[in-house]
């Protein structure tokens, strides 16, 4: 049996790695991938607590998180395509203004 704090520590490490990527990387696509890492860390926490309490509500939450992540990826990537079309770059530093 694996103690639950181990899972929580792993989820915290994964979340911080995702946040580090969001802070440091310049490519918007990689930034989105790091957001997915953070969402997965949240899922891991939900499932660890579900196992701890013997309750499937945590699984339902993880299911909803996956659905929200799917729609976030769809919208985010569409925005990346639109930005690339208007400016020819996906580096977040090049996006200084909201205007063309």
């Amino acid at each position, binding site marked *: 049996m694996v103690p639950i704090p181990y899972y929580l520590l792993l989820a915290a490490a994964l979340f911080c790695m995702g946040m580090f990527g969001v802070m440091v990387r310049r490519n918007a696509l990689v930034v989105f991938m790091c957001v997915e890492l953070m969402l997965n860390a949240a899922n891991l926490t939900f499932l660890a607590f579900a196992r701890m309490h013997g309750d499937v509500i945590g699984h339902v939450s993880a299911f909803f998180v996956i659905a929200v992540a799917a729609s976030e990826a769809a919208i985010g990537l569409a925005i990346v*395509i639109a930005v690339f079309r208007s400016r020819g770059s996906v580096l977040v530093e090049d996006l200084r203004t909201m205007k063309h």
Partner: protein
Amino acid sequence: MNIELILFGAFALLTLLSAGTVIFARSPINSAMALVSTFFFLAGLYVLLWAHTVAILQVMVYAGAIMVLFLFVIMLLNLGESPTRGKPTLARLVGGAATVGLLVVLGIVLLKLPGGAPPTMSAATQASFGTMATLGQTIFTQWLLPFEAVSLLLLVAMVGAVVVAKSRI
């Protein structure tokens, strides 16, 4: 050392390694591939937590659908290699340092949690925990409205993605 702990250690190590590759890979394609392997190792961890259904969803939705979308966009934009880090601006340095600080604080808090193995469940709970039938029953009895709201959200996201990415309507 029991087998579960060994499996957890292996999956945790591989998850962190591939997550590190996601962050530090040079080309976005390599990042995406490392992200796929991260999702697979996380699915293994979910199985260790008796969340079989969520593990299957993870592989099908994340490693399947979402990653295909990412790879499609990367190849559509045809990006070359980009430097991992540009000039270390002040904002970037402060952001990285804040993340490391957050990790330290979270680690201190989580290490103070009571340890020990998770509590054992009754035999009836154990047999049905995390199965598709239990999850479906919970969603369709207690969480029906959020479930329908999520389906609406996915529809809105689909239409919105088409509207945003299309050059002229």
